[in-house]
C-alpha cells in the first residue's frame, strides 16, 4: 500500500545536464513543508549532474536553480515548465507531481560549445 502511493522523481544526471550543460554538483534535497519538496541545483557548463530519487505522491517538486558560471535555462516542454538559472540569482520552478513518465529537458540558453548535444529528463515513477 505504501509503495503504491509512492512516486519517485528521478532527476537524471543527464537531465539537468540538459540544462545543462551540466550540473556541477550541488544537488541536495531536503524535506520542506508537508506540501512540497525542494531540490536545489547549482548548474555549470560541461559537468555531469547528480541523481535524485524519492518523493511522495502528490508532493510537488520545486526545483531551485542557480548558475555557477553563465546564464542557463531549464526547459521541460512536455510539462510546460521553464526557468532561467542565473549566476547569483536563484530561481524556483514548480513541477507538478501528479503525472508519471519521462520528460525531456534541455538548456534553452546558448551557454557553450557542445550544449546542444546534452539533454536530460525528469522521470516520475509510480
Amino acid at each position, binding site marked *: 500500500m505504501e509503495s503504491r502511493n509512492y512516486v519517485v522523481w528521478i532527476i537524471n544526471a543527464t537531465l539537468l545536464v540538459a540544462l545543462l550543460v551540466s550540473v556541477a554538483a550541488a544537488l541536495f534535497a531536503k524535506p520542506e513543508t508537508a506540501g512540497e519538496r525542494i531540490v536545489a541545483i547549482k548548474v555549470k557548463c560541461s559537468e555531469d549532474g547528480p541523481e535524485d530519487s524519492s518523493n511522495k505522491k502528490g508532493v510537488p517538486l520545486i526545483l531551485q536553480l542557480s548558475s555557477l558560471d553563465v*546564464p542557463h*535555462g531549464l*526547459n521541460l*516542454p*512536455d510539462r510546460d515548465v521553464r526557468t532561467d538559472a542565473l549566476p547569483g540569482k536563484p530561481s524556483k520552478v514548480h513541477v507538478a507531481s501528479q503525472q508519471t513518465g519521462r520528460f*525531456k529537458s*534541455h538548456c*534553452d*540558453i*546558448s*551557454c*557553450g*560549445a557542445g550544449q*546542444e*548535444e546534452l*539533454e536530460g529528463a525528469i522521470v516520475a515513477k509510480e
Partner: protein
Amino acid sequence: MAAKFDRREFLRLAGLGGVVFASGLGFGANAAAAKGQKQEEFYWVQLSDSHWGFEGPAVNPDAKGTLKKAVDAVNSLSYQPDFVVFTGDLTHTTDDPVERRKRLTGFRDIVAGLKVKTVRFMPGEHDASLDRGKAYREFFGEPNYTFDHKGIHFIVLDNVSDPAAMIGEAQLGWLKTDLARFDKDARIVVFTHRPLFDLYPQWDWATRDGAKAIELLMPFPNVTVFYGHIHQEHHEMTGHIAHHAAKSLIFPLPAPGSMPKRQPIPWDAAAPYKGLGFRDVEAAAESANKYEINEYPVQKA
C-alpha cells in the same frame, strides 16, 4: 519566360533537382511588394547549415570538402540564380573567439568562389549565440535587414543572436514598423534560422517568441518563410503561412521526435552525402504566393 522554360527543361534533361514543392495558396497576381517594382519570375538558391569548422568523421568524413562541393554545384547551374542566401550556422560553434573568427574567415573565403555575387547571409546560433553576434557582425554586418527584389519584399529575421533563442521586443518592433509600409497584398518572404513556430521544442527546434512574429505576419496573405537549423527538408503551414526548412551541408538530423535523441545521422559510405544538399526556389510571376522548390544533392549520384 523563355528562360523559365529552358531552365526547367535543363533540369529535366540533366536529372537534377529532387522533390519539387509548390508552396503557397495562390492569392492572385499583381501583389508586388515594393512600390514601382514589377513582379517578375526569377529564382534564388538557399544554402544552409554549413557548420564550417565541424569535425566528426563518423557523420561527415568530408567536412572540409562539402561546402566547396556545394559552391561548385551552384556554380555549375546553367542558369545562375539572381542571388544566393545562407540561412545560418555558417560555422560550427566554438567557445574560442579567435577560432570563431578563423572559422568565419574560412567560410567567407570559400563562398567568395560563388559565381553569383549577390549573396545574403544571416547567422545561426552556432555563429552568434555565444557572443551575441559580435564576430558575425564584423564579417557580415547586421543580422536582421530587408531588401526588395523583383516585386518581393524580403525580411531577414535574427532569432539566434539572443542566446535565449528570441527575436526580442526591439526587433519585433522593427518588424512591425517595416510591415506597416506595405499593403496587405504585398508579396513577402521571410528568411530566418530557427523555425518561427514550435516544430519540436524538446529538441530546441523553436523560437521562444516566434509566435509574435507570426502574429505580425498573419494579416498578410502572401507570406512564405524559409529557414534552416533542423538539417532536413521540412514543410509546415501555420495558417496560410508556409514554412520551408532546408537541408544542411554538413550532416542530416533525424525527423522531429523520431529518435530518442537529436543526434546527427551517421555517414552512409554506400550513399555519400545522403541527406545533404541545397535548393533553388523559383518565384512565379503569375501568382503572388507561389514558389517552386527544387532540391539538389551536394554532388550528383
